[in-house]
């Protein structure tokens, strides 16, 4: 037999480089490259090439698109690991096909978040040293960088690896160019009952320990904004919980989209059936409900009881410069919510609809992240500075685009190295 046909037998299309896939990968590489060009420009000339400027007399926003996406990426990571953990904990076996992609999603988006932070630093190289050298727990930033980026990323990686070992082992039994990788990942896993037993135990405990840490991690991110008295529109106890929930929303959204894509790609049924999507749909609906509720209370407090400046920021958001972003974000969140609710009631789920909702809520989420970051800077000055404005430059757009592309790239590659959907329990030893 030629290796080709042998590889053809690798499940889940692992190792099979279709034309479409290659084109996709090349495209992603191209976009990432563009981002690098942009970033090198920023690195050499300074952040003057971005649209960011000082608040106050300079009338700008000093945190812009980058931070918006840091928050967004970390948010996306949330859903992945949560769902994976939930599946493990509550033995939701019919959702197992989601677990792997969920885990991958988490790892990837966390990496993107980390990169985005570095891109936002004026002294990135110093940053990488000084954060490890001097970081202060007193700074809300501390949690973001220790817990979220390092701890959380590391934990997810461990989790991903452990849960991938069995599949790797299975693949390693077959000859292929990727065999060596599979051997490494399998790390001597021989599918004995004892090992399975031990494995499920480990993953169970991992899941248990990851979940609380998750909440902490995302809350700390919320605190980065929520603890700032000096920023109308930021200082709020709701900031942290709202962050967690919106994180869930965006993450679940991406997961739905990803699942749908995988479903399309897979030649055989891999168990990504309507039932799975229905569950995701309900989950998303639930989160959306909670988030919209938070949003309303937030608005109510800031408009009803808000200080002069609070009011101004809210005004700007609702009717001013940022209204278009705000209202489209609201629509992007509310319409899917309605759609999902209707489907939930009618107990009939349409995958296309879910995908649309998935994309919509993510756009909505990005919009909301942007609105948290920017208006409070341009219109939230407590001293009588003239209002400012912020428009990202191509550099920022390019860097963000390349980050997204890079994420897609990694997932794409992963698919061809390890099964993006777990292999069924074949039971053979």
């Amino acid at each position, binding site marked *: 037999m030629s290796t080709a046909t042998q590889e053809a037998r690798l499940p889940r299309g692992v190792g099979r480089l279709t034309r479409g896939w290659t084109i996709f990968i090349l495209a992603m590489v191209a976009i990432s490259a563009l981002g690098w060009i942009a970033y090198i420009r920023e690195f050499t000339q*300074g952040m003057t090439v971005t649209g960011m400027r000082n608040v106050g007399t300079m009338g700008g926003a000093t945190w812009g698109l980058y931070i918006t996406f840091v928050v967004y990426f970390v948010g996306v990571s949330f859903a992945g690991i949560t769902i994976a953990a939930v599946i493990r904990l509550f033995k939701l076996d019919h959702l197992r096909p989601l677990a792997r992609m969920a885990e991958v999603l988490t790892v990837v988006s966390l990496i993107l978040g980390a990169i985005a932070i570095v891109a936002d630093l004026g*002294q990135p*190289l*110093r940053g990488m*040293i000084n954060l490890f050298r001097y970081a202060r727990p007193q700074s809300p930033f501390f949690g973001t960088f220790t817990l979220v980026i390092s701890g959380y990323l590391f934990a997810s990686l461990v989790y991903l690896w452990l849960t991938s070992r069995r599949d790797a082992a299975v693949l390693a039994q077959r000859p292929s160019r990727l065999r060596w990788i599979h051997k490494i990942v399998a790390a001597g896993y021989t599918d004995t009952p004892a090992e399975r037993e031990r494995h499920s135990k480990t993953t169970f405990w991992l899941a248990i320990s990851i979940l609380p840490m998750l909440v902490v991690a995302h809350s700390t991110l919320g605190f980065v904004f929520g603890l700032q008295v000096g920023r109308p529109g930021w200082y709020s106890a709701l900031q942290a919980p709202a962050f967690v929930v919106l994180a869930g929303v965006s993450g679940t959204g991406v997961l739905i989209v990803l699942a749908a894509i995988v479903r399309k790609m897979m030649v055989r049924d891999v168990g990504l059936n309507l039932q799975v999507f229905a569950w995701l749909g309900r989950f998303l609906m639930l989160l959306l409900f909670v988030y919209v509720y938070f949003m309303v209370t937030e608005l109510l407090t800031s408009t009803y009881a808000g200080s002069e400046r609070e009011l101004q920021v809210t005004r700007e958001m609702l009717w001013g410069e940022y209204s278009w972003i705000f209202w489209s974000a609201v629509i992007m969140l509310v319409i899917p919510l309605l759609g999902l609710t209707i489907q939930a009631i009618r107990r009939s789920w349409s995958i296309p609809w879910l995908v649309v909702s998935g994309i919509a809520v993510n756009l909505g989420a990005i919009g909301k992240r942007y609105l948290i970051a920017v208006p409070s800077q341009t219109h939230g000055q407590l001293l009588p500075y003239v209002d400012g404005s912020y428009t990202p430059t191509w550099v920022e757009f390019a860097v963000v685009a390349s980050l997204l592309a890079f994420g897609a790239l990694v997932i794409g590659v992963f698919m061809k190295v390890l099964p993006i959907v777990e292999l069924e329990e074949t039971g053979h030893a």
Partner: protein
Amino acid sequence: MACEQEEARGRRNGALGVVPPPIGRWALKLTRRRFIQGSAAAGAAIAGSGFLFGGLDSIVRSPAAKSQLPFVEDFIPTMCWVGKQDCGMMARRIDGRVVKFEGLAGNPRNAGTLCPKGQAQIGAIYDPNRVKTPLIRTNPKGTTGRWREVSWNEALALTAEKVNEVRARSPKMVLWQKGRSKAEKFYDDAFVNAIGSSKLGHGAYCSDAGYRALEYTIGLHGVQHPDMRSTNYLLAWGWNITNAGGNKFCWITWPQQLVAARERGMKVVHIDPRLRSAGPFADTWLPIKPGTDLALALALCQQLIEMGYLDRPYLTTYTNAPHLVGDDGLILRLPGEGDEMVEAVWDPASAGPVRAGSIESPALEGTFEHAGGSCRTAFEVFKAHVVGYTPEWAADITGIAAGDIRTIARDFGDHAMIGSTMVVDGIEIPYRPVSIMSYHMAQQELGFQALRAMTIVTMLVGAVGAVGGVMSDFTWKIHKNYEPFGDLRVDDPPYDFTLKNSKFFPINTGFPGMVAKVMADPGRYGVEEIPEVAILHMVNPMASFPDRKQIMEGYDKFKFVAVISPWLSETADYYADVVLPSATIEKYEGPINASDGYIDATALRIPPMEPLFESRGEIDIYLDLTEAIGTLFGEGGYLDEINKGLTLEGEFALPLYVKPTVREIFDRWARSQGLEGVSYFEEHGVQVKGPIAADKRYGYAVDPPFGGALHRLYGESLLVAQRTMRDKGAEEIYWQDYTALPTWRQLTFDRSPPEYDLTLISYKQIEHKQSRTSFVPLLAELSPGSRVDINPSTAAARAIGHGDPVWVESQNAITGETRRIESVAAITSSIRPDTVGMPHHFGLWTHPVNRGQGASPNEIFYTGEGYMGQTADQSFHVKVRVYPARGEG
């Protein structure tokens, strides 16, 4: 922090600002300490450098960092150069390079502090856009110049040749024109005398109508300002408190005295179309209609008289109020000793006219029959004159409520405390703690008479020269104009090109705008000879004078123009044949009065470093130029004139046949002042001579009182002049304001068509000085460019938003000409709705920093009949309409 406590105490004693320790100790201590720290820093710098720690983008430029350590630090006292105030500065030098200017503690004018302009001079001296070498023009004049860099010798030779060519024929046709002169003795006097040229100042654009008014009325060279240490109630009449200075002193001296006075409880009534000028320092703001100040002043006179706030002893003794005026408006005269006639007063005792001064208490009021005719005291005439000028009448004209006018008049009268006295330096002097700051009030159509009326307001309560009252000049020496003004000369043509003693302007300020007009059309004014060569000294007529069009028509006539300036001025750009680069601060200059009105002091500008590029100090330039012209040496030469100007006699006199260095000249002068030499100033920067005694400060206390001048309430000679002017066929527009008593009439600019519904005024900003600073980047950053201050309601009515581009279009009510400029709307509630204001500092083009700064209102003001006063002084008012510039092709 010993130094700090010293200061704290200093502050409480009224001395403001930091007191830098004496230089010697300072330099030593510092240099040594820095050496150690320096090397430490150097080490750190190397360690801290490197890619990882951003070393690549490290200390702005690395050679700098290296060259600094170790370094030598020293301090050179000098003087600011940009303003009229010449504040004392301390230049901090590192290895001989000036790194900062700070206030010179010892100088009374600024007490160790500096304004933004002074601070920013560091950016001016290092400006790479200065004129670096002498330039000779290579293209036709009247347009942007192209230049050839030449040696000093070539430039001087050419200038000398052209000057001599004209001097041979008639020296007066060489015109030396200055904007500001910082060493009159060397420039206005010595140089001008040495080459026998005519000279022209900027006065008529400034407060000169006011100077003439006070010279005429009280014999002093200056306009009204308060005795700030004692005044309790001040009419800040158009005083741009937070942005500009005032008469004699300027910003920093005035603000320092003002805040002290405020803390003492002085009330400030701000009379100005803009509130921005006084800002928070106004207790009351009377937003007056531009150009109507005379009406308000007359109403105040009417009220003071009505309410009986009169200082009769003063009026009777020191003014011509009791002098008898006949029905013909002329003063009744009686034969005195010999054949001279003496003005008469009414003696109640003998019920007949007697010679003024011959009795103690003549009648101040009353109408009397005498020699078949009736006569009244001048005061009686004045009373009758103002009786119609009621607050209600004034309210319509000025836009100020009648009630407010009454209140102000009453408060003014009350605060005057008429009859009270105070003992100062052991002399009992009348105490009238009310005053007026009237600087630049003269810059309007009725400037001369408005200032006369405002002076009379203070005369009525006897505040002139009283403690807390009205000051005007440093001294009470009667100005040389006082006598001649008593009998104005009105000659027949041909006239001198300044129209001195002409039927047009019997009182004449010497008005460059008018001169330009005359040069454009000499025949029209009966002038035969016009200047051919101009030497421009620190002046930029094209940019800083109104009516650029007019100015250019004048300058087109010059055959040769030499410009002395550190930067390529706009005038140089268009008209200079030769540009001689002068230094900014880096030169010896002076001597300059450094008094603050209470302490007498003299200061000298000391070069903190060598003149940059090939520039030279003006005195150096004039030494070289006169040498080239051939009038440096000998009797009547430049050196001789300097000796006269600085009164260098005997051992101190400059030898007439040796070319001295400037430092040597000042060394002789300093020694003639009883100092060890110029080194005294090189160490201290200023010579403080001590407090000014009461008998020098207060008119009542000097001997004779008021310097012996009889204050002219009634201006007979003005009336006489008017009659002669009419006889000689001058048109009404010239003679109409020559009236014995200030008389209101409708303003010319008000006759513009109704669509020109706004009045444009121009103003000064604190960040800038005339046209000399808007190209200094540090200042251009603080105040970036032209704007039109416009009231919200006015803007709304024209659909103009803040920051919108707008056209400002002016109309000349006499010629019908219209002009327009584009600017940017600045919406502010601190200006009258019927008035718009623009800063006058912009509209320059030769310096890269000026690009995009926008236009200057000077371009749309007009010079000439109707837009200048009776004394040939520029009016800065014109009717405009303002409309959005967008949507227009």
